[in-house]
């Protein structure tokens, strides 16, 4: 029983990371209808930038994270600007273009930081809490708390601010949005930048949990993407639920199936998606018909 609960706790903290990654995916998809396969490598870039600033420049963790978010936000703007001619036209080509960007980001990371990777010490050095024999790392709680705050801020932005509502308007009908004076290109750029920022936050947070390397985006990105789809692509609560679900599924699969855990996770995911392709909360997306 203790092992089960411990596994659950472990799954939740990684799940919070997947949820952040899924949020970034969902936000960009919800507002632009673009599936961004470079998202995973943006996570990796965020992890590297944050760890560089916190290890080398000795900045406090929070400040290093903020810098990372700013830097990757810029990267997001660049990607959107380059791929803008394809928006609302050829969906599959945009997908492939983002894959290309992902490859570029990975190569640049290797050129700057080398291929071996680095371990990042946890910024929270206090001893883990012990609740009924279960160890809860303090850092896990920090991760979950930060993720929760990010979600709340995002929802407030989308629903209460003018920019956020404009973003949703563009998602529903980009031509009508232009007609009422919303600059679609700039709105999309902002959405992309926020999505990238969320990715950087996920990357900065996950560094101390796992290991920062140029290929770290692979597993994180795919599971984050799967989480977004599972929860309902484009849905914010869906991203949270999906992320936590995949995190817990991953943790239990690792516990029971050891080496085969990845296979189990993806087979289960495929089965769920076949049964309910729109995910738990259904897909909310741009109308492109």
């Amino acid at each position, binding site marked *: 029983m203790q092992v089960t609960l411990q596994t659950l706790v472990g799954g939740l903290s990684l799940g919070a990371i997947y949820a952040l990654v899924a949020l970034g995916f969902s936000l960009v998809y919800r507002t632009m209808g673009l599936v961004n396969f470079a998202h995973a490598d943006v996570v990796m870039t965020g992890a590297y930038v944050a760890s560089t600033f916190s290890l080398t420049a000795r900045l406090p963790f929070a400040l290093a994270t903020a810098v990372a978010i700013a830097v990757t936000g810029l990267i997001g703007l660049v990607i959107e600007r*380059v791929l803008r001619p394809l928006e609302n036209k050829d969906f*599959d080509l945009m997908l*492939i273009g983002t894959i*290309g*960007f*992902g490859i570029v980001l990975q190569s640049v990371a290797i050129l700057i930081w080398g291929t071996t990777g680095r371990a990042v010490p946890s910024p929270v050095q206090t001893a883990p809490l012990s609740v009924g024999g279960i160890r809860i790392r303090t850092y896990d709680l920090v991760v979950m708390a930060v993720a929760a705050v990010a979600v709340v801020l995002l929802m407030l932005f989308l629903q209460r601010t003018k920019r956020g509502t404009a973003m949703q308007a563009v998602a529903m009908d980009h031509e009508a949005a232009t007609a009422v004076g919303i600059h679609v290109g700039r709105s999309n750029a902002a959405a992309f930048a926020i999505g990238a920022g969320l990715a950087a936050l996920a990357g900065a947070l996950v560094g101390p949990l796992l290991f920062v390397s140029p290929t770290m985006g692979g597993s994180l990105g795919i599971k984050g993407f799967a989480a977004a789809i599972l929860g309902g692509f484009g849905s914010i609560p869906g991203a949270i639920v999906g992320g936590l679900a995949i995190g817990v599924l991953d943790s239990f699969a690792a516990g029971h199936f050891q080496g085969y*855990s990845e296979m189990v996770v993806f087979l289960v995911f495929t089965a769920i*998606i076949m049964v309910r392709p729109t995910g738990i909360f259904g897909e909310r997306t741009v109308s492109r018909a």
Partner: protein
Amino acid sequence: MRYRLAALASLAVFAIWLPYGVGSYTIHVLDVGLVFALLAVGMGLAMGVAGQINLAQVAFFGAGAYVTAILTTKSGYGFWTAGAIAVAVSAVLGLLVGIPALRMQSHYLGIVTLGLALAFLNWITNAEVAGGADGISAIPVPPLFGVDLSSDYLYYYLELAAFAVALAFGLFVVHTSLGRRLRAMRDDALAASAVGAQIPLLRMTAFLVAGSYAGIAGVLYAGLIRFVAPETFSLANMFLLLAMVIIGGRQSLVGCVVGAIGLTLIREKLVDFATYAQLSYGIVVVLMVVFAPTGLAGVPARLRSIVDRRRRGGGAAAPELAAFQPLAPSTVDLPADRPALEARGVSKRFRGLKALDGVSLAVRAGDIHGIVGPNGSGKTTLFNVVSGFYRPSAGAVLISGQPAGRAGPYQRSLSGVARTFQNLRLFRTLTVRENILVALDRTRTRWIWRYPLWPVSVVRAERDLGRRAAELLDTFGLAGFAAALPGSLPYGTQRRIELARAMAGAPRLLLLDEPAAGLNGEEARQLARMVRSIRDSGVTVVLIEHNMGLVMSLCDRVTVLASGAVIADGTPAEVAAAPAVIEAYLGDAELSEEMAP
């Protein structure tokens, strides 16, 4: 034509003599390049030609290689027997991965195929039978009548032969009816199903073919390297393969080959600068996607069009729409008792919205029947129910007295229902002639088996289709546009092409959705002439129209819909005078009485 043949022959001679001029490592690299070329062709067929995102291609490749390895080293099978089984396994795996393609497309399909590829990679990294992380070594050299295939030089010839056959078969598929159907499906799955393409089976076929090609590549790879390990089938190589296909041009099989072999050679050259090489692939992919989506293979065509445009400025005349040749009138009497189309209490709900509310109407055989009504009254929804795109929430549709039941658009097309669309749905990347050819092709999907088993019949069918297409193009005056892409043509011409395409299926019931929208007076008159001729040839026509003059002059009977319900049904004169109709259009019956002359 003779240019092409000479080029082909010299290419063949070059390929045959190549091993004599290169070192032993270079030929090894070429051998690997040919394997990737096979993979790329399979991927091109699934992604470029059929439009199915297939990120599991490396998994099929791995299945072919691993099954060969396991059967030869652990179960003692001969190499070729093991290879045959391996290709079968890869093909079946392709089918299995294709099942999600029935329920989802695009990014969903991408993530599911990617996930399944990772699942496969995970399995081979852990399974004892697959050798785990160490892989399987000491795969035996394939025996071939005493030829020593452990030499990379001689293995090249084996690969060349397999590759040539595979490429030829792929090109054969693309340029004949199956390829056209796949391309039509890629361009517009909805319209493709309306002209007789059975979309689910075609999607599975695309994955089956991709899997088979990858299986063959896997077997050749196992025989070449004689060692298989998980890293070869990783995501990194999947994305490299994707880069090859995109850079070469995914819609052209030859482009895929060029991309595969080119990138393999470039990788070898840049092996000391591996990271810079990877960076450049990424940059080239992005640039290609934005500026040259058709890849390297599309470059000749684009150059040609630029040259043509410059030359055109001089004085070559643009093709023109020729006159419509009236169709031969029907000599068969249509059954007077059985309506060509009947709707009984058809309702259609979308969540909260009731688009159709108990619609009942009957269209007499041989009539031209109009469906009119204000915007949003459910006219197109009715068409979608009749042609099988929607299933009614209540009620039934009978076509020529037979209940349509749950038949999809494909079956209804084959039983004689054709339609046009409100927003033109022509196949953008197919020429006008190919658009017609797709619709002319009335073969059942199971006839795909002709391709591997009896390709000669395909060739014969092609000739027959070609002849009939020429006739149809002449009939509709489109002969001058046969080789053009529809997107570049004037709107009126595109409307006529869609009409011709609908008629290509030799339907008994023709549904026209706002055929006169955007047409000027003369074009509308020509349309009326064509519709009458079509009716006279024995086809029942139902048309949705807003152009009242056209409706009044053309239609035998008219049904008026408003807010999803039938509010009037009868001859045009009766319907025009009905107060309910006037109210629906003008808003107030009393007001209209005041205004009546």
